[in-house]
């Protein structure tokens, strides 16, 4: 998946004309947002809840949304960052809860999530976003830098640090 501003613009116009068309936005971008949420929360159930929060807020804000030539994913990520921070604040001091059904329906999700947690730990929002943009959405480093509002070298460094951390966890003997 690559970011296509023209597609985004059509999708948002369709959804603003008829909220049912928001289903296409959801189908297209749920994956990246969910993966980002897993990297942030480290737990598939929490991640699903967070991702649903993001799309619920986006859908509620749709009538007020104004197109500004920025990818929809940038808007969704900004909601996700804000949501994940406020959820973390709320969650501190209380036991985690699974608000939705455990997403055990898709095979291997718990295992993949556990491996992501082991490899990367709970990442900060910017790094998690950079990884998803690079490895899932296939953004170039220029696009990541533009989306995150940072220098190109900083975008490269974010990904590099995550990779270096994963390598440390894997250990030199574990290569290959």
């Amino acid at each position: 998946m690559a970011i296509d501003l023209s597609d985004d613009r059509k999708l948002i116009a369709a959804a603003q004309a008829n909220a049912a068309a928001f289903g296409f936005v959801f189908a297209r971008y749920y994956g990246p947002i969910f993966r980002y949420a897993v990297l942030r929360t480290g737990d598939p159930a929490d991640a699903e809840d967070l991702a649903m929060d993001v799309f619920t807020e986006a859908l509620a804000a749709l009538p007020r949304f104004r197109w500004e030539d920025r990818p929809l994913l940038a808007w969704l990520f900004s909601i996700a960052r804000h949501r994940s921070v406020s959820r973390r604040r709320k969650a501190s001091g209380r036991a985690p809860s699974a608000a939705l059904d455990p997403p055990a329906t898709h095979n291997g999700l718990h295992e993949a999530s556990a491996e992501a947690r082991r490899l990367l730990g709970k990442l900060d929002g910017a790094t998690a976003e950079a990884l998803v943009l690079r490895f899932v959405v296939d953004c170039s480093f220029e696009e990541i830098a533009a989306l995150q509002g940072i220098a190109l070298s900083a975008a490269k460094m974010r990904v590099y640090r995550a990779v270096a951390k994963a390598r440390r966890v894997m250990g030199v003997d574990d290569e290959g």
Partner: protein
Amino acid sequence: MKGDDLRAEQLATVLDGGPVPDDIDVLLPAVNRIRDVLQRLGPHPDHVASLLPVLLERLLAMSARPVVELAHPTLYVRDMDASLTFYRDALGLTVREEGPWLSTLDAGGSALALRWNGNPRQAPNVGDMCIEFRTDELDRVVQALRRRAIVVDVKADRHRGRCAELRDPDGYAITIFTRADATERAATRLLASRDATAQQSDD
């Protein structure tokens, strides 16, 4: 360039499809593991589709706010008779219910309630509030009020045109303003009455 910066640059080149330098290939297994894990995290399309109704339910729950509507504002008054005389006789509102403790009046499209405060010597706290009425016939209303020796201040309001300011027996601030379209309404009434007269004379 520092070592980390150099490796970040090299890794970025590799990730963009460039050649793999000797000192960077040790990072590639980690890159592949991350890529693999992120791919495996991807929710199945069927699962995404099954979440759509959940999204809509959440949205409905968010928008299902409790709805209330204004029944009527209630003024606490120290003398029910004096207040009824003012609102009914001087302002011309219609009494809907009348009682020593509670009276309600029709005030055009809304209602106004008067509740006795239980102590004729205790003035109610009239606070920073104002009850606003509107009329097509401000001059007649002002004349009727002045005939009852009620002090009325007529002034020009920048937003509402001419308006009359006065106080009720307890000191509540009252403003009566002219409808914005009073002239148009008066002209329409005049035309309707002329047409009705013409119709009668034709018959």
